[in-house]
Protein backbone atom coordinates (compact mmCIF):
# COMPACT_ATOMS: atom_id res chain seq x y z
CA UNK A 1 0.00 0.00 0.00
CA UNK A 2 2.81 2.37 0.94
CA UNK A 3 4.48 1.49 -2.31
CA UNK A 4 1.37 2.34 -4.33
CA UNK A 5 1.21 5.75 -2.70
CA UNK A 6 4.87 6.40 -3.45
CA UNK A 7 4.42 5.26 -7.05
CA UNK A 8 1.42 7.55 -7.47
CA UNK A 9 3.35 10.52 -6.07
CA UNK A 10 6.29 9.74 -8.33
CA UNK A 11 4.05 9.50 -11.39
CA UNK A 12 2.29 12.74 -10.52
CA UNK A 13 5.64 14.52 -10.18
CA UNK A 14 6.58 13.13 -13.57
CA UNK A 15 3.32 14.44 -15.03
CA UNK A 16 3.82 17.87 -13.55
CA UNK A 17 7.41 18.13 -14.78
CA UNK A 18 6.44 16.98 -18.26
CA UNK A 19 3.48 19.31 -18.71
CA UNK A 20 4.46 22.36 -16.70
CA UNK A 21 0.91 23.76 -16.81
CA UNK A 22 -0.64 24.83 -13.50
CA UNK A 23 -4.27 24.92 -14.54
CA UNK A 24 -6.57 23.18 -12.08
CA UNK A 25 -8.11 20.99 -14.75
CA UNK A 26 -4.72 19.70 -15.92
CA UNK A 27 -3.57 18.99 -12.38
CA UNK A 28 -6.78 17.13 -11.54
CA UNK A 29 -6.46 15.09 -14.72
CA UNK A 30 -2.82 14.37 -13.79
CA UNK A 31 -3.79 13.11 -10.34
CA UNK A 32 -6.51 10.94 -11.85
CA UNK A 33 -4.10 9.59 -14.45
CA UNK A 34 -1.47 8.63 -11.88
CA UNK A 35 -4.05 6.85 -9.76
CA UNK A 36 -5.30 5.03 -12.85
CA UNK A 37 -1.76 4.00 -13.84
CA UNK A 38 -1.07 2.68 -10.34
CA UNK A 39 -4.31 0.73 -10.44
CA UNK A 40 -3.41 -0.91 -13.76
CA UNK A 41 0.09 -1.72 -12.52
CA UNK A 42 -1.33 -3.37 -9.41
CA UNK A 43 -3.70 -5.42 -11.55
CA UNK A 44 -0.76 -6.44 -13.72
CA UNK A 45 1.27 -7.49 -10.69
CA UNK A 46 -1.59 -9.65 -9.49
CA UNK A 47 -2.30 -11.20 -12.87
CA UNK A 48 0.99 -12.90 -13.73
CA UNK A 49 2.93 -15.61 -11.94
CA UNK A 50 5.67 -13.12 -11.18
CA UNK A 51 4.64 -11.00 -8.28
CA UNK A 52 5.66 -7.41 -7.80
CA UNK A 53 9.25 -6.39 -8.24
CA UNK A 54 10.98 -5.89 -4.91
CA UNK A 55 12.80 -2.60 -4.91
CA UNK A 56 15.57 -2.09 -2.42
CA UNK A 57 18.16 0.44 -3.39
CA UNK A 58 20.18 2.91 -1.38
CA UNK A 59 19.60 6.23 -3.14
CA UNK A 60 22.91 7.90 -2.29
CA UNK A 61 24.95 4.85 -3.21
CA UNK A 62 22.95 4.54 -6.40
CA UNK A 63 23.68 8.13 -7.45
CA UNK A 64 27.39 7.59 -6.76
CA UNK A 65 27.18 4.42 -8.82
CA UNK A 66 25.64 6.29 -11.76
CA UNK A 67 28.55 8.73 -11.86
CA UNK A 68 31.02 5.88 -11.68
CA UNK A 69 29.20 4.20 -14.59
CA UNK A 70 29.40 7.39 -16.67
CA UNK A 71 33.18 7.50 -16.20
CA UNK A 72 33.40 3.83 -17.07
CA UNK A 73 31.33 4.37 -20.24
CA UNK A 74 33.72 7.11 -21.34
CA UNK A 75 36.73 4.83 -20.89
CA UNK A 76 35.29 1.83 -22.67
CA UNK A 77 33.90 4.00 -25.47
CA UNK A 78 37.42 5.17 -26.13
CA UNK A 79 38.65 1.58 -26.33
CA UNK A 80 35.99 0.57 -28.84
CA UNK A 81 36.46 3.74 -30.92
CA UNK A 82 40.16 2.97 -31.23
CA UNK A 83 39.34 -0.52 -32.45
CA UNK A 84 36.79 0.73 -35.00
CA UNK A 85 39.14 3.35 -36.43
CA UNK A 86 42.29 1.21 -36.54
CA UNK A 87 42.99 -0.12 -40.05
CA UNK A 88 43.35 -3.77 -39.06
CA UNK A 89 40.65 -4.17 -36.49
CA UNK A 90 42.30 -5.92 -33.58
CA UNK A 91 39.42 -8.00 -32.33
CA UNK A 92 39.85 -10.76 -29.80
CA UNK A 93 36.40 -12.10 -29.08
CA UNK A 94 35.61 -14.38 -26.22
CA UNK A 95 32.61 -15.63 -24.30
CA UNK A 96 33.23 -15.87 -20.60
CA UNK A 97 31.32 -16.28 -17.38
CA UNK A 98 30.87 -13.50 -14.87
CA UNK A 99 29.51 -14.49 -11.45
CA UNK A 100 27.12 -12.10 -9.75
CA UNK A 101 26.43 -11.63 -6.06
CA UNK A 102 23.19 -9.60 -6.10
CA UNK A 103 20.21 -11.01 -4.25
CA UNK A 104 17.30 -9.22 -5.89
CA UNK A 105 16.07 -9.40 -9.46
CA UNK A 106 16.43 -5.65 -9.80
CA UNK A 107 20.07 -5.72 -8.73
CA UNK A 108 20.87 -8.48 -11.19
CA UNK A 109 19.12 -6.61 -13.99
CA UNK A 110 21.03 -3.42 -13.14
CA UNK A 111 24.32 -5.30 -13.23
CA UNK A 112 23.49 -6.99 -16.53
CA UNK A 113 22.36 -3.74 -18.13
CA UNK A 114 25.50 -1.96 -16.94
CA UNK A 115 27.64 -4.65 -18.53
CA UNK A 116 25.76 -4.19 -21.79
CA UNK A 117 25.82 -0.40 -21.56
CA UNK A 118 29.61 -0.22 -21.43
CA UNK A 119 30.72 -0.85 -25.01
CA UNK A 120 33.00 -3.81 -25.37
CA UNK A 121 31.01 -6.21 -23.21
CA UNK A 122 27.51 -7.59 -23.69
CA UNK A 123 25.45 -9.81 -21.44
CA UNK A 124 24.21 -12.68 -23.54
CA UNK A 125 22.49 -14.99 -21.11
CA UNK A 126 21.54 -15.19 -17.45
CA UNK A 127 22.00 -18.69 -16.13
CA UNK A 128 22.01 -19.81 -12.51
CA UNK A 129 24.54 -17.71 -10.65
CA UNK A 130 26.50 -16.21 -13.50
CA UNK A 131 26.09 -14.20 -16.67
CA UNK A 132 27.46 -15.25 -20.01
CA UNK A 133 29.32 -12.19 -21.29
CA UNK A 134 30.71 -11.57 -24.73
CA UNK A 135 33.80 -9.38 -24.85
CA UNK A 136 35.11 -7.61 -27.91
CA UNK A 137 38.77 -7.20 -26.97
CA UNK A 138 39.28 -9.79 -24.28
CA UNK A 139 42.12 -9.56 -21.80
CA UNK A 140 42.61 -11.10 -18.39
CA UNK A 141 42.00 -7.75 -16.71
CA UNK A 142 38.36 -7.89 -17.73
CA UNK A 143 37.54 -10.38 -15.00
CA UNK A 144 38.90 -8.08 -12.30
CA UNK A 145 37.11 -5.05 -13.77
CA UNK A 146 33.77 -6.85 -13.91
CA UNK A 147 34.21 -8.21 -10.38
CA UNK A 148 34.78 -4.62 -9.24
CA UNK A 149 31.59 -3.56 -11.01
CA UNK A 150 29.75 -6.44 -9.36
CA UNK A 151 30.90 -5.30 -5.93
CA UNK A 152 29.76 -1.76 -6.63
CA UNK A 153 26.31 -2.90 -7.76
CA UNK A 154 25.96 -5.04 -4.65
CA UNK A 155 26.77 -2.02 -2.53
CA UNK A 156 23.74 -0.17 -3.91
CA UNK A 157 21.41 -2.88 -2.67
CA UNK A 158 19.75 -1.91 0.58
CA UNK A 159 17.69 -3.74 3.15
CA UNK A 160 14.54 -1.63 3.14
CA UNK A 161 12.01 -3.20 0.84
CA UNK A 162 9.57 -0.71 -0.56
Amino acid at each position, binding site marked *: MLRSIFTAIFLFALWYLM*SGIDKTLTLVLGAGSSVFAVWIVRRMDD*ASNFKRLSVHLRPIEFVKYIFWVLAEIAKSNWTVIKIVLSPNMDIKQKMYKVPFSQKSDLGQAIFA*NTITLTPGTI*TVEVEGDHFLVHGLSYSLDDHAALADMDRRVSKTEGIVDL
Partner: protein
Amino acid sequence: MIFHHLILRVVTKLLVGTIILFALYVQFHGDFSPGGGFQAGVIMAVAFILYGIVFSLESVKKVFPEWLVHKILALGVLIYAGTGIATMLLGYDFLDYDAFAPLHPTHGQHWGLLAIEFGVGVTVTGVMVAIYYAFAGRPPSLTDEDW
Protein backbone atom coordinates in the same frame (compact mmCIF):
# COMPACT_ATOMS: atom_id res chain seq x y z
CA MET B 1 10.53 -21.04 -20.09
CA ILE B 2 10.16 -17.36 -19.43
CA PHE B 3 12.22 -17.76 -16.29
CA HIS B 4 15.48 -16.94 -17.97
CA HIS B 5 14.28 -13.69 -19.49
CA LEU B 6 15.09 -11.95 -16.24
CA ILE B 7 16.16 -8.60 -17.64
CA LEU B 8 13.14 -8.27 -19.89
CA ARG B 9 10.80 -9.03 -17.01
CA VAL B 10 12.40 -6.49 -14.69
CA VAL B 11 12.52 -3.77 -17.34
CA THR B 12 8.90 -4.38 -18.32
CA LYS B 13 7.74 -4.12 -14.72
CA LEU B 14 9.68 -0.91 -14.32
CA LEU B 15 8.41 0.70 -17.51
CA VAL B 16 4.74 -0.23 -17.74
CA GLY B 17 3.48 2.32 -15.22
CA THR B 18 5.41 5.13 -16.84
CA ILE B 19 4.16 4.18 -20.28
CA ILE B 20 0.54 4.33 -19.13
CA LEU B 21 1.14 7.72 -17.55
CA PHE B 22 2.81 8.96 -20.72
CA ALA B 23 -0.18 7.79 -22.75
CA LEU B 24 -2.54 9.75 -20.55
CA TYR B 25 -0.23 12.77 -20.68
CA VAL B 26 -0.34 12.75 -24.49
CA GLN B 27 -4.10 12.22 -24.30
CA PHE B 28 -4.86 15.24 -22.16
CA HIS B 29 -2.34 17.63 -23.67
CA GLY B 30 -3.71 17.41 -27.19
CA ASP B 31 -4.08 21.16 -27.50
CA PHE B 32 -0.71 22.20 -26.03
CA SER B 33 1.74 19.86 -27.72
CA PRO B 34 1.74 17.48 -30.66
CA GLY B 35 -0.35 14.46 -29.92
CA GLY B 36 -3.94 13.68 -29.21
CA GLY B 37 -6.28 10.78 -29.17
CA PHE B 38 -4.68 8.62 -31.83
CA GLN B 39 -1.15 8.64 -30.43
CA ALA B 40 -2.41 8.28 -26.88
CA GLY B 41 -4.46 5.24 -27.81
CA VAL B 42 -1.48 3.60 -29.49
CA ILE B 43 0.82 4.26 -26.53
CA MET B 44 -1.75 2.92 -24.10
CA ALA B 45 -2.14 -0.20 -26.21
CA VAL B 46 1.66 -0.55 -26.38
CA ALA B 47 1.77 -0.85 -22.61
CA PHE B 48 -0.60 -3.82 -22.73
CA ILE B 49 1.13 -5.34 -25.77
CA LEU B 50 4.54 -5.13 -24.11
CA TYR B 51 3.14 -6.81 -21.03
CA GLY B 52 1.52 -9.49 -23.17
CA ILE B 53 4.70 -10.15 -25.13
CA VAL B 54 7.04 -10.41 -22.16
CA PHE B 55 4.66 -12.20 -19.79
CA SER B 56 1.86 -14.15 -21.38
CA LEU B 57 -1.33 -13.57 -23.29
CA GLU B 58 -3.23 -15.22 -20.46
CA SER B 59 -2.11 -12.69 -17.86
CA VAL B 60 -2.74 -9.68 -20.07
CA LYS B 61 -6.22 -11.03 -20.68
CA LYS B 62 -6.73 -11.11 -16.92
CA VAL B 63 -5.77 -7.42 -16.71
CA PHE B 64 -7.73 -6.29 -19.74
CA PRO B 65 -10.39 -8.93 -20.45
CA GLU B 66 -11.54 -9.58 -23.95
CA TRP B 67 -15.19 -8.64 -23.35
CA LEU B 68 -14.03 -5.28 -22.00
CA VAL B 69 -12.07 -4.66 -25.19
CA HIS B 70 -15.19 -5.05 -27.28
CA LYS B 71 -17.22 -2.84 -24.93
CA ILE B 72 -14.52 -0.18 -25.01
CA LEU B 73 -14.45 -0.17 -28.80
CA ALA B 74 -18.07 0.91 -28.85
CA LEU B 75 -17.74 3.17 -25.81
CA GLY B 76 -15.27 5.45 -27.57
CA VAL B 77 -17.58 6.01 -30.51
CA LEU B 78 -20.45 6.60 -28.09
CA ILE B 79 -18.47 9.29 -26.26
CA TYR B 80 -17.69 10.95 -29.58
CA ALA B 81 -21.25 10.86 -30.82
CA GLY B 82 -22.61 11.66 -27.38
CA THR B 83 -20.64 14.90 -27.29
CA GLY B 84 -22.12 15.86 -30.64
CA ILE B 85 -25.62 15.02 -29.55
CA ALA B 86 -25.16 16.88 -26.28
CA THR B 87 -24.31 20.04 -28.22
CA MET B 88 -27.38 19.48 -30.37
CA LEU B 89 -29.57 19.09 -27.28
CA LEU B 90 -28.19 22.37 -25.98
CA GLY B 91 -29.50 24.02 -29.11
CA TYR B 92 -26.35 24.32 -31.19
CA ASP B 93 -25.00 22.47 -34.24
CA PHE B 94 -23.53 18.99 -34.12
CA LEU B 95 -20.11 19.22 -32.40
CA ASP B 96 -20.35 22.97 -31.94
CA TYR B 97 -18.34 23.19 -28.72
CA ASP B 98 -19.47 26.68 -27.84
CA ALA B 99 -22.50 25.02 -26.33
CA PHE B 100 -20.62 23.89 -23.23
CA ALA B 101 -19.78 27.41 -22.08
CA PRO B 102 -21.70 29.99 -24.09
CA LEU B 103 -20.10 32.87 -22.21
CA HIS B 104 -16.52 31.66 -22.75
CA PRO B 105 -16.34 30.03 -26.18
CA THR B 106 -12.65 29.20 -25.68
CA HIS B 107 -13.42 27.24 -22.52
CA GLY B 108 -16.23 25.48 -24.27
CA GLN B 109 -13.97 24.45 -27.11
CA HIS B 110 -11.40 23.20 -24.61
CA TRP B 111 -13.97 21.02 -22.88
CA GLY B 112 -15.39 19.75 -26.14
CA LEU B 113 -11.97 18.88 -27.56
CA LEU B 114 -11.05 17.01 -24.37
CA ALA B 115 -14.19 14.91 -24.65
CA ILE B 116 -13.71 14.19 -28.35
CA GLU B 117 -10.05 13.28 -27.92
CA PHE B 118 -10.95 11.02 -25.03
CA GLY B 119 -13.42 9.15 -27.19
CA VAL B 120 -10.88 8.74 -29.99
CA GLY B 121 -8.22 7.55 -27.53
CA VAL B 122 -10.50 4.96 -25.97
CA THR B 123 -11.49 3.55 -29.35
CA VAL B 124 -7.92 3.41 -30.66
CA THR B 125 -6.78 1.61 -27.51
CA GLY B 126 -9.54 -0.91 -27.98
CA VAL B 127 -8.78 -1.45 -31.66
CA MET B 128 -5.04 -1.89 -31.13
CA VAL B 129 -5.47 -4.32 -28.26
CA ALA B 130 -8.13 -6.22 -30.21
CA ILE B 131 -5.75 -6.56 -33.19
CA TYR B 132 -3.00 -7.79 -30.86
CA TYR B 133 -5.33 -10.34 -29.28
CA ALA B 134 -6.43 -11.55 -32.68
CA PHE B 135 -2.83 -11.95 -33.87
CA ALA B 136 -1.52 -13.52 -30.70
CA GLY B 137 -4.45 -15.83 -30.24
CA ARG B 138 -3.80 -17.43 -33.61
CA PRO B 139 -2.27 -20.88 -33.11
CA PRO B 140 1.24 -21.13 -34.60
CA SER B 141 1.09 -22.88 -37.97
CA LEU B 142 4.72 -24.04 -37.93
CA THR B 143 6.70 -25.79 -35.23
CA ASP B 144 10.24 -24.79 -34.37
CA GLU B 145 11.74 -27.74 -36.17
CA ASP B 146 10.00 -27.06 -39.46
CA TRP B 147 11.31 -23.53 -39.70
